[in-house]
């Protein structure tokens, strides 16, 4: 069993509980114990891109310090990797190290944590560097390996037509992405290892509309249509995602997209970890389909395919 520090983030504990419930369970099945950080805070959610504001970069750095502390307390030994499921968490945690490459910014950040300790408490020590953020997809690709996944399959997803969708933040920018930003293959390789039939989605790396879902649902509805219509026309039965915000937009905003474009048929959206939980033969409770978190219920499809 490999023990890896695990940063959950807010999404997988609320609207994306189905992601973490299935994800933590399949990790264990594949020999990875995800050890939650004893202390963690918001990841900062979206990469902040202004050069002149240190404040909005502190949240992810603080989380990297908490990984450092896990090592100091002996919860993990010499383990500088931290795993997360959510693409937004992954992105901000990874970006924090790039941000700190600038010595001036690193110095200012150190001064902040020093002063904070002096006046209000906070982290005991500044960030020493070297904590590496891993998306769980990277764990599957590089630590577990596709062959091992294929070996562990108990219930192949034979005949299930699945279209992958990546979104933006695990792929771009290039210096942060976990795969080729134009032609990623991780999800395809995992789905093939599970025995599923992969359906091409030409828009699998396109934006889902992201935070516009709060105040510009019209934009998100157009993108949802654009992101779903090609795989739907190609016969896809389920869309597979890796980001909780993409998932919300692709799933819940189908209602808006369907009003704009009558030809869009409803299609369920699931996390790759949920399909893995099914294929690896885990208990139903780890599928995460009974928690009322899906807009389009995937159960009828799973039942029709004898997977539930």
């Amino acid at each position, binding site marked *: 069993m490999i023990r890896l520090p695990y940063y959950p*983030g*807010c*999404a997988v504990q*609320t*609207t*994306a509980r189905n992601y973490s419930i299935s994800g933590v369970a399949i990790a264990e099945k594949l020999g990875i114990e995800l050890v939650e950080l004893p202390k963690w805070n*918001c990841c*900062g*959610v*979206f*990469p*902040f*891109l*202004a*050069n*002149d*504001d240190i404040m*909005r970069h502190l949240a992810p750095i603080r989380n990297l310090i908490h990984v450092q502390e896990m090592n100091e307390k002996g919860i993990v030994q010499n383990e500088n990797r931290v795993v997360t499921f*959510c693409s*937004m968490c992954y992105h901000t945690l990874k970006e924090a190290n790039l941000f700190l490459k600038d010595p001036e910014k690193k110095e200012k950040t150190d001064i902040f944590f020093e002063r904070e300790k002096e006046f209000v408490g906070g982290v005991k020590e500044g960030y020493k560097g070297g904590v590496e953020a891993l998306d769980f997809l990277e764990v599957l690709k590089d630590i577990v390996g596709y062959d091992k996944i294929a070996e562990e399959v108990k219930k192949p997803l034979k005949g299930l037509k699945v279209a992958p969708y990546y979104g*933006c933040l695990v*792929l*771009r*920018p*290039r210096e942060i992405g976990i795969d080729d*930003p*134009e032609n990623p293959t991780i999800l395809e390789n995992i789905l093939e290892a599970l025995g599923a039939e992969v359906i091409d989605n030409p828009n699998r790396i*396109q*934006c889902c*509309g*992201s*935070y*516009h*879902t*709060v*105040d*510009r649902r*019209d*934009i998100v509805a*157009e*993108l949802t249509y*654009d992101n779903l219509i090609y795989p739907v026309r190609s016969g896809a039965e389920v869309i597979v995602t890796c980001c*909780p*915000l993409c998932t*919300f937009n692709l799933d*819940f905003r189908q209602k808006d997209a369907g009003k704009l474009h009558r030809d869009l048929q409803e299609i369920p959206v699931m996390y790759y970890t949920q399909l893995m939980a099914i294929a690896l033969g885990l208990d139903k409770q780890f599928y995460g389909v009974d928690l009322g978190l899906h807009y389009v219920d995937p159960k009828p499809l799973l039942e029709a395919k004898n997977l539930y």
Partner: protein
Amino acid sequence: MNLAEKVRSISGEDVLSCYQCGLCSGSCPVRFAMDLSPTQVVRLVQVGNIEKIFESNTFWICSTCFSCYARCPRKINITKIMEALRQIRLRRDQDKIALSDIPKEELKILPPIALVSNFRKTTA
């Protein structure tokens, strides 16, 4: 510091190296909802006409997907330029959205990451 210098300083991007190929606009998934294309915005930063950009909705519509930056042959991070424009507006004016604007029904279903990321981009 004038506005164009401010955009360059906050973004840290060398806008003058843009040769207006248009790949950013062709790659932008939300171009359909923008007044000015990303290419036009970069041009206006080059010539220093920031007020004209501020009359447009382009930098608010940008959803920070990094497609433009991933494909720019001059490796200009246009996403950072959009952030700089948003920041200058937000620091000068008031927030673009308030929690009370969002319908209660929506608040029940929206993921926390949607709300926080929206507020990070539309409030100071």
